[in-house]
């Protein structure tokens, strides 16, 4: 499969009163056609900001300070965030679904209007055609009596239903890439399963690629083909899902797998928490950010700048000195 999106050394910073927050600190990743990848990390690791950067939805005091985002042979960062080029890509070729279905839908517009707006704007459809398409999309994502529900407002829908609408909106212009930022975190367990399964089917049907941004290792184990693990604004490990889970190499990844309770665990399994806290991203040192919490640290980690990702065979990359 050919590469659809390639991000190189992307860096996004926020200038705050306390100092510069390097929310995304030089990450590189790629996404192939019709691929599902997972971007995993805890809150504040920069996973959402990296995706908002791809969409160029970073607002002041945030700023994309470096890197390239190559999509269909063009570097998206050469375009103005509000310019016509980005506007024709954002929502059309690259679409995003957010965590909070309540706040990401406009409460004063009907569901129908919110769906048809994108269609009319991006695809130049007529009112009737966009209405037909909106009904079709709502049916696809499993909303019963779609025709009547077009006139409803977001508050008429349950959380799960709203997220279905969001998915329908995301898919409305046949995007090449769908970015789902914690798409099911706010929802109930069985609804989560329904939606993730539906989203996977939809992405297959639309021949799109999917980026799942999540803190849930189970979700990526179930759906993603490849995974990127993020910590403190950097990608610390990358590889196929099976490689990452079968032989995790970065101490943070190893720590994550040891500290989560598993549904299938045997009686008496002890969780091994990762000591300490994620670092404050203001004025970060240039050494590896995980050092203070790391069980495998050496002198070298405290002296040298954080190690770049190194190829460990197959598609497995890790940024850690302990694997030398």
């Amino acid at each position, binding site marked *: 499969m050919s590469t659809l999106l390639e991000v190189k050394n992307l860096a996004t910073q926020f200038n705050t009163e306390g100092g510069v927050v390097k929310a995304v600190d030089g990450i590189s990743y790629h996404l192939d056609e019709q691929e599902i990848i997972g971007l995993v990390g*805890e*809150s504040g690791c920069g996973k959402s900001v990296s995706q908002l950067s791809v969409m160029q939805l970073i607002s002041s005091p945030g700023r994309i300070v470096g890197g390239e985002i190559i999509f269909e042979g063009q570097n998206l960062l050469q375009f103005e965030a509000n310019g016509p080029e980005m506007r024709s890509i954002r929502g059309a070729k690259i679409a995003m679904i957010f965590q909070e279905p309540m706040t990401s839908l406009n409460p004063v517009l009907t569901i129908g209007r919110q769906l048809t707006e994108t269609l009319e704007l991006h695809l130049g459809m007529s009112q009737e055609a966009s209405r037909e398409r909106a009904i079709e999309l709502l049916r696809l994502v499993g909303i019963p009596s779609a025709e009547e529900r077009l006139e409803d407002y977001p508050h008429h829908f*349950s959380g*799960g*239903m709203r997220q279905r609408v969001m998915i329908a909106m995301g898919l409305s212009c046949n995007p090449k890439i769908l970015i789902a930022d914690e798409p099911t975190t706010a929802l*109930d*367990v*069985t*609804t*989560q*399963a*329904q939606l993730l*399964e539906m989203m996977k089917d939809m992405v297959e049907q639309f021949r799109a690629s999917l980026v799942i941004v999540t*803190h*849930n*290792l*189970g*979700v990526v*184990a*179930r759906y993603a083909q490849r995974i990127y693990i993020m910590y403190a604004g950097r990608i610390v490990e990358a590889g196929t*899902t*099976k490689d990452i*889970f*079968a032989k995790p190499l970065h101490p943070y990844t190893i*720590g*994550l*797998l040891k*500290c*989560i*309770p*598993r*549904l*299938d*665990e045997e*009686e008496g*399994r*002890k*969780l*091994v*928490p*990762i000591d300490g*806290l*994620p670092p404050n991203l203001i004025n970060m040192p240039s050494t590896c950010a995980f050092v203070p919490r790391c069980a495998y640290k050496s002198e070298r980690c405290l002296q040298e700048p954080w190690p770049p990702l190194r190829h460990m065979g197959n598609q497995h990359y890790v940024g850690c000195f302990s694997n030398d």
Partner: protein
Amino acid sequence: MNRPLDDHILDIRDLKMYFPVYRGLLRKKVADVKAVDGVTFKLMKGETLGLVGESGCGKTTVGRCILRLYQPTDGQIFFEGEDILHIAEQTVREIRRKIALIFQDPYSSLDPRQSAGSIVGEPLKIHQVVNSQSEYTDRVEELFRLVGLDPSMKDRFPHEFSGGQRQRIGVARALACEPSLIICDEPVSALDVSIQAQVINLLGELQEGLKGLSYLFIAHDLSVVRHISDRVAVMYLGRVVEITDSQTLYKNPLHPYTRALLSAVPIADPFIEETRERIILKGEVPSPLNPPPGCSFHPRCFQAIGECSKAIPPLRHIGEGHEVACIRV
């Protein structure tokens, strides 16, 4: 009426909590939201019982009824052998000394203008369990150490602590009056994964250290509940549909809802996920205002037959400590 056994700290029988719905100018009662509709379970001394279910299934309401924050519509709750639903108002405070609560959100459950030390020490004052200022200070510092916080931090305010540390403050506050039962209402769901484990382990260590401490662990995350609980009760629309030990819950779940709930939780292992059975339920949880007739799960159930809509299936004894409310089992 048979009295509960001594080794049961909590014995709940046919608990019902209906919230009336009023409509119209005259505020006429039009219906009841049956948040809890006939829940029965027992909790042993030193045991952890997990209460799982999706939002609106009534798990939090059960916890609040035990604390007498709600006056249940019907049923009985025996705590340490005493029927706590029919006791005098003054004694309720006594019960709340012995039953503590840990909340979900460590950000909104701590008063931002109160120092950490005074948050932890407040129950000591309210219940007058200390006699002098020095005893108070000693106890607060002891509680800080017990939950792994440095006592020198007791003059700081909640915003100076991280989420995990805040939850430790919440745990210390719950432990202040040496309760025999702690109701943990989603205590780790607001925390990051690497911090969750710290709090889960802390709760486990406290139970080992303080003999006889029992937990009622209310959560929606089945893997967390299984990890920490000895037994698990699965709730759906105000009723317990299955109750068993946490090993059997994973290895031999019998109620179709339990099976669907388990299969909805992805396991962090792509090799297991490849071959796992996936039961994707149709529709959503119905409103407790107007639950379906018979077994309230039958409209979404993949094993439902005509009989299922006729009568509410009672919990039946299936095996050692294993009870299921389903006629198809």
